């Protein structure tokens, strides 16, 4: 009889504990995060994002389920599928491709994205998606390149599988005739392609588009004799110019949207944020090393000058 009582007690205790645990879990919201790996820019935004979120009370109510797939369409889709299977409340996507992959997988999934490329997202807009986007002013980068050195041929490194980089290529092709440049298209589908692609190419300057693959490939590019412009940051490489949306501001805007959602707002009630927040970084040391002309515009306009 005593033994029975004891057993009952234990049973009650276990069920109580599990109840508490469960009720606690119900309060929490799960945010699935797709953070394409190897792209330092997204990691930087993510760091800022976490810092911003930590400072708020709502952060305690969130579980982050982070997926770090390699940035190719299949891996991104797989990550999205996994998060959908986990039944997360919101999927928070870094970059255009992760967003598109998720929306293709399930169009009614609530999605919040950051660092999305506006023209590329236009076709995939859904009621349940909103986020922070940007559009790089392509003409600025070609103008600055041209003012440093006479550029006849401009190599554009892009990945046809990443629609943002395709839009940028189009834009570059559109403005190059005005600066009397010829565009040389340099397709890379894997980061390792870059060496082969550049082997027999003779260009006066290179632009790396926002393609994740191009960005990863850029990190192999430490010492090079022609000016490189990048539309995403890459500190481990030394692009002479980089022009990209401020990771800190992108993170802050994204955090604001997520917080609004956690407070009960629906994604369609929150406007997309496409405000200007570009940063222009100029590497003076590299420019001097290559003997480039240093235009005053760049010096005054740069948000940061690396010596």
């Amino acid at each position, binding site marked *: 009889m005593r033994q029975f009582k004891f057993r009952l007690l234990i049973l009650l205790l276990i069920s109580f504990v599990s109840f508490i645990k469960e009720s606690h879990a119900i309060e929490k919201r799960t945010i699935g995060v797709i953070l394409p790996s190897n792209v330092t820019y997204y990691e930087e935004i993510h760091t800022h994002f976490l810092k911003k979120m930590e400072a708020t009370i709502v952060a305690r109510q969130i579980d982050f389920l982070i997926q770090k797939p390699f940035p190719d369409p299949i891996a991104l889709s797989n990550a999205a599928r996994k998060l959908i299977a986990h039944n997360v409340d919101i999927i928070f996507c870094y970059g255009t491709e992760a967003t598109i992959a998720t929306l293709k997988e399930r169009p009614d999934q609530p999605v919040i994205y950051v660092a999305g490329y506006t023209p590329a997202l236009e076709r995939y807009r859904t009621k349940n998606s909103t986020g922070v986007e940007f559009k790089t*002013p392509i003409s600025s980068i070609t*103008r600055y390149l041209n003012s440093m050195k006479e550029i006849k041929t401009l190599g554009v490194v892009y990945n046809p599988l990443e629609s943002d980089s395709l839009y940028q290529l189009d834009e570059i092709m559109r403005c190059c005739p*005005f*600066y009397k440049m010829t565009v040389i298209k340099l397709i890379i589908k894997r980061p390792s392609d870059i060496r082969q692609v550049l082997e027999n190419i003779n260009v006066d300057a290179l632009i790396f588009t926002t393609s994740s693959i191009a960005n990863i490939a850029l990190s192999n590019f430490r010492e090079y004799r022609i000016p490189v412009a990048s539309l995403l940051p890459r500190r481990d490489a030394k692009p002479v110019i980089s022009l990209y949306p401020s990771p800190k501001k992108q993170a802050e805007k994204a955090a604001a949207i997520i917080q609004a959602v956690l407070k009960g707002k629906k994604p369609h009630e929150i406007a997309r944020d496409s*405000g*200007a*927040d570009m940063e222009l970084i100029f590497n003076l040391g590299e420019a001097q090393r290559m003997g480039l002309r240093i235009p*005053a515009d760049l010096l005054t*306009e740069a948000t940061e000058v690396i010596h």
Partner: protein
Amino acid sequence: MRFLLLIISVLILCFSTASFAAEKEILIGLIPEENIFRQMDRYKPLSEYLTSRLGMKTRFTILSRYGDIIDRFITRNLDGAFFGAFTSVLAIEKLGVEPVVRPLNPDGTSSAEGYIFVRRDSNIKDIKDMKGKTIAFVDRATATGYIFALAYFKEHGIKNPLGYFREYYFTGSHDSALLSVLDGKADIGVAKNKIIKERFKKDPVMEQEILIIARSTALPDVTLCLSKKLDRSLKERIKDILLNMDKDPEGRKVLERLGALRFVAASKEDFSIVYNLLKKADIEIKTYKYR
């Protein structure tokens, strides 16, 4: 001993005043408009021309924007300066300077307009869309690069214009305000049309990408104002020389170098339009903190 000292000090005083009188020169300030070395190059022949015509050494000096222009005018003991529309009004009010002449641009105008502009692909079409965006002004002390925009926003019912935006900042130059918008650092920019047009002429892509949302009325451009301390007859001579420069070949060369057709007479009345603007913008010039 004391006597000796006295004699020496008197002698020194005599010499110094004598040398001072001999080296009396006219010093005119220049508000930076472009690359100051180029600007100095442009103005240099004019200083030589004035020196030879006046028989008095005439020199130009760059009036850097650091600190207080008015203080600088006083501490450097300037005899006059080429001011912009707003700084002219400021100098008239605070220093009692007198507008004398202003150069006529090659297109026949001697005025400037302020523009409010955005990137064409930015989805901003009017003042409503500007809410919560980032705006880049030129400087608190410019009519075309700040004051006019302030007046414009107030006119359109925005009581606290600076609070209407997510962020606002001053770029320090008209070029920079334009480039800030082009480079995507700001959504909206405010700057002088002259600079914008020059840029557009050099780079047609810029023109394609910029949408001008509002323009100010014509405001008087760079004007030479002379100090009230300067001898009236000297002022008249300077004015006379400048106004008649285009009539002698040497003067025409100097004007060409300066990038002006000729000088035209300027008066306080030209600035009523600026006073008007200040009123619309609720700015009290005497107490206005432009720094």
